[in-house]
């Protein structure tokens, strides 16, 4: 073995002024933990919103191009015919778990005394609930069923039910334009009351089955097909295949449709990006300052080492390693701290209050992403080493005589 233990030398030097080193390492630890916790929170939020968006619309949405780009003059103007055939072809793809039809329409809903605007969605209830799980919180009554009922049934949003004084079993009337432009009405029975967690949605949203919706709109079409895949990772490949399979139609992925997801991501990226940058800078400044003080104190020693034949590059490497011990050691401690907090939150969930525009809180969750941990630690290591080397550069390159005369 023919190497001087530079790392040991760096460690010994870092321990010279223990209080200063501890303060520096602690700030690096707290900074790293803050970055990792903030990015873990953002990542967890992204993952949650992505899952929610994909679960709501489907990983892929297949429709006529005009359905995505133009407004309809009449309901189902840009809808799909022969939905069953399309569905069967899509289900032949091994990555496809389920294909759900969807009929979007709007109109009025009335209890006889009061009418109000509704946003309605016709779904295939059995498949929808099977694939999405409990995506709606049932507040009263039961979920819709796919099997034909004696009378058409709907589920109302909580706010809408309150507005219409409706409860399970109540009779209401849906009013809407048909595909031909005529006005149509249909009596329905309330099967259940739900909450999406978004009060504004709950004041307008109505779920019914596809057949009821088509009956009201007087057209055997659907607005779009939601394609549910086995995993999020399968989206790009499946999108390309579906695109090739139906060249006359257009397929969009969940992210294109998920406006809320993209808005939150844009906002969080900016907020946490700026926060991370500030924390990074603080840690770099603290380590740089500690290293600058240490280097000034050791100018004469650096001169001695240069006189003994140490090349400037060797000293720079040694001092960069010292920065690494301080900043990198602190960063490693910070990563452990962040990991510990994340695991604790997983074991002992903390409930967060509802975000603005929502009625339900959510459990605080911090994602543990090895690549984020690795990237943060690596960035921290490289930056503190670079900063230390930059700070040391002047002293290391000053004339040896001058360094030896330093008092």
């Amino acid at each position: 073995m023919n190497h001087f233990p530079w790392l040991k030398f760096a460690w010994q030097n870092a321990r010279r002024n223990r209080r200063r080193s501890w303060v520096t390492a602690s700030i690096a630890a707290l900074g790293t933990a803050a970055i990792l916790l903030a990015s873990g929170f953002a990542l967890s939020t992204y993952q949650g919103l992505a899952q929610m968006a994909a679960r709501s619309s489907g990983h892929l949405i297949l429709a006529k191009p005009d359905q995505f780009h133009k407004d309809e003059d009449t309901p189902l103007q840009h809808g799909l015919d022969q939905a069953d055939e399309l569905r069967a072809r899509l289900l032949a793809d091994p990555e496809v778990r389920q294909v759900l039809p969807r009929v979007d329409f709007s109109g009025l809903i009335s209890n006889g005394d009061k009418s109000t605007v509704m946003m309605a969605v016709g779904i295939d209830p059995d498949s929808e609930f099977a694939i999405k799980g409990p995506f709606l919180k049932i507040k009263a009554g039961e979920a819709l069923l796919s099997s034909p009922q004696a009378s058409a049934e709907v589920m109302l949003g909580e706010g809408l039910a309150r507005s219409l004084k409706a409860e399970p079993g109540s009779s209401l009337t849906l009013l809407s334009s048909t595909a031909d432009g005529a006005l149509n009405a249909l009596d329905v029975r309330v099967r259940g009351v739900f909450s999406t967690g978004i009060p504004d949605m709950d004041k307008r949203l109505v779920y019914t089955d596809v057949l009821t919706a088509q009956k009201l709109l007087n057209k055997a079409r659907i607005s779009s097909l939601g394609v549910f895949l086995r995993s999020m990772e399968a989206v790009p490949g499946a999108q390309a295949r579906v695109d090739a399979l139906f060249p006359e139609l257009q397929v969009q992925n969940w992210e294109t449709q998920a406006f809320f997801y993209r808005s939150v991501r844009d906002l969080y990226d900016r907020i946490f990006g700026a926060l991370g940058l500030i924390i990074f800078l603080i840690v770099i400044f603290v380590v740089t300052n500690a290293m600058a003080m240490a280097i000034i104190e050791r100018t004469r020693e650096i001169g001695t080492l240069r006189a003994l034949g140490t090349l400037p590059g060797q000293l720079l490497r040694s001092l960069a390693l010292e920065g690494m011990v301080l900043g990198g050691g602190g960063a490693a401690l910070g990563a452990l701290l962040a990991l510990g907090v994340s695991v604790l939150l997983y074991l002992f969930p903390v409930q967060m209050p509802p975000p603005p525009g929502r009625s339900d809180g959510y459990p605080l969750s911090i994602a543990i992403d090895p690549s984020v941990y690795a990237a943060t630690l690596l960035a921290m290591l490289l930056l503190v080493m670079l900063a230390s080397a930059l700070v040391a550069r002047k002293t290391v390159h000053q004339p040896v005589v001058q360094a030896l005369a330093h008092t």
Partner: protein
Amino acid sequence: MSQPVVMEMRSVHKTYRLGEHIVPALQGVDLQLREGELLALTGPSGSGKSTILNLCGLIDAADRGEILLQGRPVDARDETGTTLLRRDAIGFIFQNFNLVPVMSVAENVDYPLFLAGLPWAERQQRVREALQSVGLLEHAAHRPDALSGGQRQRVAIARALVKRPRLVIADEPTASLDSGTADQVLSLMRELAHRQGAAFLIATHDSRLTCRCDRVIALLDGRISPHETSLPLGAAA
């Protein structure tokens, strides 16, 4: 003298700038230092002793003139080249020892060998021998701050000589020592110089030291005084 010349200065000039003033530190100094020789430089402060040490130690550059190490001219502008020459051929003993406080005694002595790229086993062997020769083997694991001034200077001597340099630059090596310790250090330097054949260039005000060197050169105002004391190599007691 028949010993080969280790270090030679030929008509070396050096000036320093102090504010707006230019101070001549050396004014055409010629000097030869031979293998195994202990050469003492004396003179009042500002006479140029330290400047000669710095130039011969290749940690400073002359304005004019030529410096030769083992017969080869040294290009002081070549930072890497002079660093490697210092690493391989020159040892330093400083007035204040300048040991690295976070390294043990053995690590301090090992450091020049590591820089020279010697194998681990050979380094261990040489460090042991060097510490034995200065009587500090039992202190190998100690930190410098656990040693007395004399012991620290002996560590510095071991560090300077462990790589078997051709030239040792010693700046007031006994200035921080009491007379008994200074005497021990002097004896040690003489013994090692003659045993290893290293040339010692020593700047000193200490008459106990000058009277035991092979040659004494007095400096005044950056020039060598004509009254040079010279003894045959090994004649000084």
